[in-house]
């Protein structure tokens, strides 16, 4: 029986510059790149040297921890550069794309009769496995584990985030194929959170448990849905995957090709014409950013949404998991008596001479200023108002900061990912880096226990 979930605690961030629902095919990029930071906790071992030729879908490197797990090139071309950082850690792998794209072809098989192990092997070999993430630890799923359930959030409530239904319109066949394949991996259910049962792209998909979810952000985060539908216990594993990535898996299963193409929302107040572009994973952002135009020279470009994304330079590349790219103004300026004067043009979770509570539908043009300095935790009771999970957020953050493993476990660190703490970080009066604290806590737990 599907559940009807109403989220009450939360905060919708209405920002200027939501993407208009028209899609343009972006000009093709010359160079494509993979950021290794996208794959948290993976130690890459290169399979191709600089100068080597690869096809689209051909492996570039594998995971040292699990050699079956391959990471593939989104396009065919020549591996032109491996950018390394401190201690020769690989940061970026760049591929110069061929004019004519060649795909590595995998064998397709009948999904209804296929064995789970065969499908798993195909996903691992084809480079689709990294799309599947697991909790606990919010890392790429361990192929050896059996998840008790798989969760997919069928909509997004993040500020300026892409509209999933719009992006995936017409991809029902691929979605269904991917769902059929994933169903073999778990004895449990595949849960999909939808905001509208009729108009959702998942409305016609079979073999999933559709849960109606309503309410403000973070209702659309998969972590919120897991917590309300079937929370994770110690020792359990659940897998999560985003709808866009399901399409790539579905296409692989149907055609045997790894097609890195996806629709990306370009949004934010610094974009002149915010809209959707079809492009490929790892494409140069400049190939579509300047097609829409930018208003301002001093802007921040973000791979992902404004709460969880990562900063990228305008000459950077689309991240592996990202379906949104945002450009918002940098806030690197002082403001006279900014701490005590009445504020009308910024979002606040209080009413301390801040007036965003007056009009809930007003759109804001927020910049990247921190609006204050980093402080110790002082105020209490604020996070709870925007944090719908059945977890004590302040106490869990403090447990992570003091590295108390027992308490981290007991307070539910297994259930969360850093993104679940993005909204508490946004409203934090002490300007503490919640997502970083949670990430470090998860890493520590993984290292010590996982």
């Amino acid at each position, binding site marked *: 029986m599907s559940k009807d979930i109403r989220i009450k605690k939360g905060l919708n961030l209405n920002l200027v510059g939501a993407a208009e629902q028209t899609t343009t095919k972006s000009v093709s990029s010359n160079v494509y790149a993979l950021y290794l930071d996208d794959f948290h906790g993976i130690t890459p071992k290169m399979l191709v040297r600089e100068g080597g030729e690869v096809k689209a879908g051909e492996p570039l490197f594998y995971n040292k921890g699990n050699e079956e797990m391959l990471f593939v090139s989104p396009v065919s071309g020549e591996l032109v550069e491996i950018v390394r950082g401190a201690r020769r850690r690989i940061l970026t792998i760049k591929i110069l794309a061929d004019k004519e794209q060649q795909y590595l072809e995998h064998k397709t098989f009948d999904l209804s009769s296929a064995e789970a*192990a065969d499908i798993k092997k195909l996903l691992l070999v084809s480079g689709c496995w990294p799309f599947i993430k697991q909790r606990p630890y919010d890392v790429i799923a361990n192929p050896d*584990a*059996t*998840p008790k359930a798989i969760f997919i959030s069928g909509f997004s409530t993040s500020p300026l985030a892409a509209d999933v239904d719009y992006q995936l319109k017409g991809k029902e066949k691929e979605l269904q194929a991917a769902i059929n394949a994933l169903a073999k991996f778990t004895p449990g259910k595949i849960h999909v959170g939808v905001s509208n049962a009729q108009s959702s792209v998942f409305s016609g998909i079979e073999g999933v448990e559709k849960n109606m979810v309503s309410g403000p952000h973070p209702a659309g985060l998969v972590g919120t849905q897991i917590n309300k539908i079937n*929370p994770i*216990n*110690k*020792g359990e594993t659940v897998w999560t995957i985003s709808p866009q990535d399901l399409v790539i898996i579905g296409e692989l299963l149907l055609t045997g090709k790894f097609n890195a193409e996806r629709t990306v929302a370009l949004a934010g107040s610094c974009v002149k014409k915010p809209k959707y572009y079809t492009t490929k994973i790892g494409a140069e952002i400049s190939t579509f950013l300047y097609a829409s135009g930018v208003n301002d020279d001093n802007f*921040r470009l973000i791979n992902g949404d*404004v*709460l*969880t*994304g990562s900063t990228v330079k305008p000459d950077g590349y689309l991240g592996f998991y990202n379906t949104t790219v*945002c450009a*918002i103004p*940098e806030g*690197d*300026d*002082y*403001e*006279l*008596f900014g*701490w005590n004067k009445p504020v009308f043009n*910024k*979002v606040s*979770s*209080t*009413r*301390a*001479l801040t007036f965003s509570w007056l009009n809930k539908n007003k759109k804001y043009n*927020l*910049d990247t*200023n*921190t*609006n*204050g*300095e980093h*402080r*110790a935790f*002082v105020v*209490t*009771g*604020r996070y709870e108002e925007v944090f719908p999970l*059945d977890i*004590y957020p*302040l*106490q869990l953050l403090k447990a992570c900061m003091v590295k108390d493993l027992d308490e981290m476990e*007991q*307070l*539910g660190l297994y259930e969360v990912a850093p993104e679940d703490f*993005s909204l508490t*970080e*946004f*409203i*934090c*009066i*002490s*300007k503490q*880096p919640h997502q*970083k604290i949670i990430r470090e806590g998860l890493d520590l737990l993984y290292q010590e226990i996982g």
Partner: protein
Amino acid sequence: MGLKQKMHELKLKYQGKKMAPAFNAFHTFLFTPDETTHGGTHVKAVDDLKRTMNTVIMALVPCLIFGIFNAGYQHYSALNGFPENFSLFEHFINWDNFILGATTVLPLVIVSYGIGLIVEFIFAVIKGHEVEEGYLVTGMLVPLIVPVDTPLWMLAIAVVFGVVIGKEVFGGTGMNILNPALTIRAFLFFAYPTWMSGDKVWVHGAVERSNEIAAGANLDAISGETVLGFLAQGNTQEMYAKFDLAEMFYGFIPGSVGETSTLLILLGGLFLIFTKIASWRIMLSAVVGALAMGLIFNGVVEAGWIQDYSKFYELMRFDFWKHLIVGGLAFGIVFMATDPVTGSQTNKGKWIYGFLIGFISVMIRVFNPGYPEGVFLAILLMNVFAPTIDHYVVQGNVKKRMKRLKNATIYPKTTEGSAEELKAETV
């Protein structure tokens, strides 16, 4: 934008130097910094600690202004007798009251902020962290909760003690166990008990006058007895003759500088609840707790379990709801109990914490006639117990999780199985 540029250049000059925190404190007072987000969320809500603290100060300002006028009013009324037909603008808001009040109260404010901030700056420079805003509120609370004639040197010593022992030794703002302002108040009370209690300290000039009388001057003594003082001595009739209920509620009574006006405290409390800065849970439950204890005492009197010669009788008989409008209870509930650092941090815990503060305040008030003001001791006591309350509240969440664990569906890892299957296929 000359100033902005100039300050920015100075900031770069001081960067990495020892005095940087001191300079930054002034700089960030003028300008919110040009700092941008890196990692984590790219945008942030507008609220910061300065704004939060500033909101509390705004709620306190009416109490301070009232306290200034009341200091003058109490002094002149004690000398010349209370006016017959009291009129607000004729007898209360006038230049005489203001000048006397300002010259007695503002030095307290200046010493409190001056000494406290010097200590904060010294610690910030030594430890190399930014000057945190906690003292902005503490510095305002302190002059409001001390008697008007508190000698400045006493206050200075108490502030140093309160900031160093009450806060900095624990690691500064956000780390302290006890409310710093109440630590200062408690230090004053226990270090100088002869000065800080009795009926002479509450009205300006009373102590001086009694010294003069002792020296042989032929003058009338000034009585500065508070409502609770009257009650503790069993002089209820005398008290009602001097102050009526409205006066108690509006605050035209002797007491610590800023805590007499229940009306303004109520408005301040509503402002803090509306702005979501202070916890309504603590305030509401503390009021309920105080009323509950008051009702119990009233019931004891009603049931005849206590005789009217008992020294507790008059305070126990005092109508339960009147406890809220006399003494420092209302001020303590609104401005001290709601301190987020030293109070309970969980929502459930706040209910318990607030209730016990109100409950114990009235209990101390009644059972300790030698010192009838129990609220600060009650809050300090509950400060100590707040982490324990939170611990049990959080344990409730942990237990729920443990219970869920019994039904966990954990599947064994499939490595070995699948490897064998793969082998079988190849053979």
